């Protein structure tokens, strides 16, 4: 779903971010784990930090929690300088990748742990714990010990324990990585629902791009300690700013060539394609630059060679490999130049087999030109 404008405060220049991260740098020895990162995160967002392991996303999250302190930069939450506060003073809670449930305490004691230092009355504390258990649908499990719970139940106890403190921001470190695939999908939706119910800003670290796409309002893609692109999932996917983001998120064909203007509008002259590729995007800024035209496999259509393919760009090719994915077919089609193009086709109608000659094509609006 593409968010409506009122759901995207980042597009509103007047909106005040809840969390401001300004030029944060953190080095370990001489290695810059987080290198000049600035981000604005708004109240109620489900924000994801996405990147491969070692890209600095966890270090950034740990700095928000207070387990690491940046060498330079500023972090402000609702106008308060977070960097002056110790972890136990911050209005921020974290859900750990290992869940970090205290093994010597019951579920109720785990959840109540953070409330014990708040000086609540016994009744009030028990009520808050009971409500938190209800929120994560574990009401009957209060007296269990963590080692008597399944992975999914542990995950929900960890979530309840972090949320019961009513933090301004909840930090989630790879919250679903320890769950199996089926449970992960169900939990994704549950997390989104809980986030909407409590209205707390969620900041999640993940290496799983599908997870980030499915859950986030916005994603910050990180590479080598830097944020390389920030945007809503559909922006990141459809309009990547760089080859790195284009190839990191999903799969993409990159047609390298020179951007140029012709009678039919902008084009990329691609030797691999064996001719000009028509591009709908305005490439004035990239005129006569070496670019890569990125085209997602599912934007490319495939047809028998004799069939008319209504596409702005088309070429003949030979099917080299076929992968049957159930919901779709993934083809690797060799162009006359030998270049392999990935094509994903919905699993309806004609199926093609290796060695077959086919025609592939895509529209001028399907590609995005990348110069970085």
């Amino acid at each position, binding site marked *: 779903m593409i968010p409506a404008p009122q759901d995207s405060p980042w597009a509103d220049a007047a909106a005040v971010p809840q969390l401001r991260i300004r030029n944060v740098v953190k080095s370990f020895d001489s290695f810059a784990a987080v290198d000049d990162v600035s981000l604005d995160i708004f109240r109620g967002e489900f924000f994801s930090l996405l990147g491969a392991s070692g890209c600095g996303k966890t270090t950034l999250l740990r700095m928000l929690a207070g*387990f690491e302190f940046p060498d330079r930069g500023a972090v402000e939450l609702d106008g308060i300088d977070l960097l002056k506060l110790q972890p*136990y003073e911050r209005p921020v809670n974290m859900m*750990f990748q290992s869940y*970090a449930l*205290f*093994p010597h305490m019951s579920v109720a004691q785990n959840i109540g*742990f953070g409330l014990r*230092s708040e000086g609540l009355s016994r009744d009030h504390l028990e009520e808050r714990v009971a409500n938190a258990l209800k929120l994560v649908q574990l009401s009957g499990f209060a007296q269990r010990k963590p080692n008597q719970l399944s992975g999914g139940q542990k995950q929900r106890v960890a979530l309840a*324990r972090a949320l019961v403190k009513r933090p301004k921001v909840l930090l989630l470190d790879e919250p679903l990585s320890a769950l199996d695939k089926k449970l992960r999908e169900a939990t994704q939706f549950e997390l989104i629902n809980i986030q909407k119910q409590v209205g707390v800003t969620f900041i999640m670290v993940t290496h799983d791009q599908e997870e980030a796409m499915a859950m986030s309002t916005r994603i910050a893609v990180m590479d080598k300690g830097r944020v390389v692109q920030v945007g809503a999932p559909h922006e990141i996917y459809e309009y990547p700013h760089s080859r790195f983001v284009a190839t990191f998120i999903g799969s993409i064909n990159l047609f390298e060539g020179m951007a140029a203007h012709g009678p039919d509008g902008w084009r990329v002259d691609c030797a691999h394609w064996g001719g000009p590729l028509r591009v709908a995007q305005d490439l004035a800024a990239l005129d006569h630059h070496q670019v890569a035209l990125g085209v997602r496999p599912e934007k490319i259509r495939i047809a028998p060679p004799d069939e008319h393919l209504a596409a702005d760009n088309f070429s003949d090719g030979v099917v080299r490999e076929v992968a049957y994915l159930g919901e779709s077919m993934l083809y690797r089609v060799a162009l006359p130049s030998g270049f392999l193009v990935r094509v994903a086709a919905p699993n309806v109608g004609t199926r093609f087999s290796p060695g077959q000659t086919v025609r592939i094509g895509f529209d001028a609006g399907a590609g995005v030109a990348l110069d970085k």
Partner: protein
Amino acid sequence: MSAGKIVKGMSALALIFLYAPILWIVVYSFNESQLVTVWSRFSTKWYAALLQDEQILRAARISLEVALLSATGATVLGTMVGYALARFGRFPGRTLFSGLVIAILAIPEIIMAISMLLLFVALESATGWPHRDVQTIVMAHITFSTAFVAVVVQTRVSELDVSLEEAAADLGARPLRVFFLVTLPLIAPALLSGWLLAFSLSLDDLVITSFVSGPSSTTLPMVVFSKVRLGLNPEINALGTLIILIVSLVAALSLLRTMFRRRGA
């Protein structure tokens, strides 16, 4: 002969080798004869004699007092050392600190004994303190057993997931609360084994104790050793049997406790 039989035979030989002397003490503690090595007939008279022997009872009390105090002191200090080594990262002087702790384990006992005696003597002539009695023994015992506790605790703390302590801090607990509510309960088994180790090290130490003790503070090993030098007395057999009995009871209880826990969980 099959491999299984060889293993069984070797195990039996090893057990006999380990426990035959102990069994011998138990059997001969019920010997009526005055001579340790000659069996005459069954009797419990040496136990009665033991319970009348003021010197041995007093030494046993002192030994227990020293062991309790020094094991507790060593556990407190050793826990602090072990925790610092496992958790405080690369603080300046860490290598030196950890080396000095480990070195205690390797220094010959007699060297430790002499150096501590010299220290106590010099200190006493300079400041009037410490007078050589139970307190100097306790201090000496704490010195050598702290290293053992530190090693045991450091291992356990290193195995402990740091995120448990981080989670506690994240949930609003200050460092001391984190330590007492989360770290301490989770490393308690290591503290207990460290304490027991320090206790038994203290209980049977002879060399260091002999050097640093005073005239009024003779421990059990010192009494036994002096008695042995005057000729073996069957009373010692009775004493040994009682100690073996107590140790086996403690071991059996802790074994039962672990078995019960496993079933309960």
